[in-house]
């Protein structure tokens, strides 16, 4: 078995040089002042009312976005996984395909769609329906996030579902379980690893994004990502920026820790 562990070698080298050492740099910056002395001031900055509000709002929006993505993606993944094998790869690609148009362009396109005189409102007024007025509000940000991150929820769940042992499902049905029971007791528990991956892949970028809130929130809604970006770019204060990033990381890791508690990792590995 030890020979197999050696396979992690390249990865180990890579993550030490390009993940861990840079991280040490961030910690170093976060815990020192511009003059170089040790300080906790940068970390404490998170407690100012505007930063706390930004952090809270980011958590809230990321949470809502993750829930919506999960609710949309799970049935989608089930539909995709139950369709024939030969076509499923095509369908999955259809969901990745939009991502091949640059992300900045797609977000800008939502602006064109959602604006007051935008495409959607032109359609609605043509049909004599009430106008949709969500541009420059948190709703537009959530929409943009869901749009951008949905594929990251669909793919991992799909990947797990497609491998699901059909015989188990059939056996459950034969033994008299109804559709709901089969789902809750057979399908759902087995798909948890995929769901966890999906939640990670959606929650984390949603929590830290700043471009979407800039473009669709009209710059009126400050998320923690915006605060950090501004501190680095406009304020040029790497110490404070690093300090705030450290706090954000702690929050994200803590949230993911809670999620991972539900991830029942079968002890000892699966093969």
């Amino acid at each position, binding site marked *: 078995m030890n020979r197999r562990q050696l396979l992690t070698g390249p*990865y180990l080298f890579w993550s030490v040089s390009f993940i861990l050492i840079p991280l040490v740099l961030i910690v170093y910056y976060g815990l020192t002042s511009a003059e170089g002395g040790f300080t906790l001031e940068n970390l404490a900055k998170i407690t100012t009312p505007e930063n706390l509000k930004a952090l809270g709002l980011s958590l809230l929006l990321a949470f809502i976005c993750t829930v919506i993505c999960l609710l949309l993606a799970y*049935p989608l993944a089930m*539909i995709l996984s139950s369709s024939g094998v*030969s076509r499923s790869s095509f369908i999955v690609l259809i969901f990745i395909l939009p991502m091949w148009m640059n992300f900045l*362009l797609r977000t800008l396109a939502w602006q064109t769609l959602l*604006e007051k005189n935008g495409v959607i409102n032109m359609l609605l007024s043509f049909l004599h329906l009430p106008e949709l007025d969500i541009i420059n509000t948190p709703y537009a940000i959530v929409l943009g996030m869901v749009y951008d991150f949905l594929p990251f929820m669909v793919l991992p769940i799909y990947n797990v579902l497609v*491998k699901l042992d059909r015989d188990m499902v059939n056996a459950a049905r034969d033994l008299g379980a109804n559709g709901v029971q089969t789902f809750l007791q057979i399908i759902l528990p087995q798909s948890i690893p995929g769901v966890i*991956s999906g939640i990670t*892949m959606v929650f984390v970028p949603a929590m830290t994004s700043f471009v979407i809130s800039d473009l669709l929130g009209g710059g009126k809604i400050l998320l923690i990502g915006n605060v950090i970006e501004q501190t680095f770019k406009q304020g040029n204060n790497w110490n404070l920026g690093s300090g705030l990033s450290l706090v*954000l990381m702690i929050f994200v890791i803590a949230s993911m820790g809670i999620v991972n508690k539900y991830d029942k990792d079968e002890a000892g590995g699966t093969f």
Partner: protein
Amino acid sequence: MKKAARKIYLGLILVLLYAPIVTLIVLSFNQSKTRARWGGFTLQWYRSLFGNEQIMNAFYTTLIIALLSAFIATVIGTLACIGMQAMNRRVRGLFLSVANIPMVNPEIVTAVSLMLIFIALRIGLGFETILISHITFNIPYVILSVMPKLRQTQRSTYEAALDLGASPVYAFWRVVFPDIVPGVLSGFLLAFTMSLDDFVITHFTKGPGIDTLSTKIYAEVRKGIKPEIYALSTLLFVSVLLLLILVNYSPEPKEGAVKQTVTKAARIKVLVLRRILPAAMAVLLTAGGIYYGSKGNFTGADTVIVYNWGEYMDPAVLDLFEEETGIQVVYEEFETNESMYPKIKAGAIAYDVVCPSDYMIQRMIQEDLLSEINFDNIPNLKNIGETYLEKSQAFDEQNRYSVPYCWGTVGILYNKKLVDEPIDSWSVLWDEKYADSILMQDSVRDAFAVALCYLGYSLNSTDLDELTAARDLLMEQKPLVQAYVVDQVRDKMIGNEAALGVIYSGEAIYTQSSNPDLEYVIPKEGTNIWIDSWVIPKNAQHKENAEKFINFLCRPDIALMNFEYITYSTPNTAARELIEDEALKNSLVAFPTDEMLKNCTAFQYLGDEMDAVYLDFWNQVKSR
């Protein structure tokens, strides 16, 4: 019934996913250059796309980096997953949390930390550093895709294979690997896609003369996206779509006994559709890459490295310069002073000539980042109006470090159809009549300048009481503001989205030409007058070329070309004389009278501490 519901659900999701894509495709056929107006159908952007070397080069760089980084990340990530599976739970948990770090970290932090490492290791920023960074953030996606698959594999089958005498490696390849292939593939695809889409990390780790599509687009956002970019995205999208349809919907060769009955014609059809066409596309792509790659080769030649604002120079000017002097121009763009500054400060790239704004030049002089220009090499300086050199003394006391390139004011652009009163004061931005129709600048100093001027204070104020008053005023204004924007005032005003917007005078000329209802005014309380000037950094490697370049730009005919292309006011009085359009030549927007400018002040660098105060106050406004 159930089937219908599934189809409807799939359909709705597809509409959600594809609405923006369709929008972008439609925009690629839009004759008008702004996204806010439909100007009629055209194919011209597709034609000009292939002549645009910058975009095509960026496109190929993007593709190569995406492919290489996805491939390497997939190999490293998959190996790591297999290895981790053999570890005990605790160690594996540790490994997995390390893998998550790049995903957990805000992108900008990863970006900055990687840049710091490259500088510390003295790896010159360029293609390799982008590649390394992309591999770094791609690995977690691969691990996240492969790990769940690996967990699902049945240990019993693997053990059965061992019991039947297979070696562990053989058993792995025959039993386990086929099971995880979908995960590996989707990991590769995800990695490829993430790399294609990345902006922030590329931005910080790239060197001069190399661009990916994202960085190119971002630099262009300020002045509006070039329609060629839409055309390229559409082409890319359509070709991938076609490829997928070909591979998936061509007739499948039948299994077993039926195989013999398949006609020769059908077999050829399959061969063509599934093999030859995709291969032809790949060849086409590679050939294109080599073609554009060879054109973009500038090693060894006499060069000058230029760092300028996005869309801030007529590309034809660069061609002319190369032709006349034989000096190769390596051209780089930035989108704000603040994103340019750390790159110069870090010294990772030795730019030869840079175009920052007034207050930033002052800061760079103070921090000894600039070298004095040898004005013997710039005889064309005589074309620059005396007033502009005088104004420059606010940030460059003796005119030793900078040569003015463009200048302008910050004022109010309003829509005459939506505003029927004459406007001459900032006060209109606090008028409740225009609630939700006001666009404010989303940059600290510009926003505070508006409030400070309105209150009658200096826009370089460092007095905390004055700043507090300005902050409160901005807070009071926030409910009336439709959006805080930098780049999109232009498109939004053209599209009649808002009645009033705070905008740079140079943008005003362009927007007026697209929407004649728009009017620009310099408020009577005064405003910011800004100057963007050419400077030469201390660590420039080709100082003489830089001076030749600046001299070239000061030539009247060249300055005129640039003025007509970017529509920002030129300080080049000789060039102004050459303007043929009398209306433009005498335009009070492009060339306001001294009387109009009497209350206008240039920004000054207020020091790190004051900057922090401004930013703090601004965050308080934004988070209200």
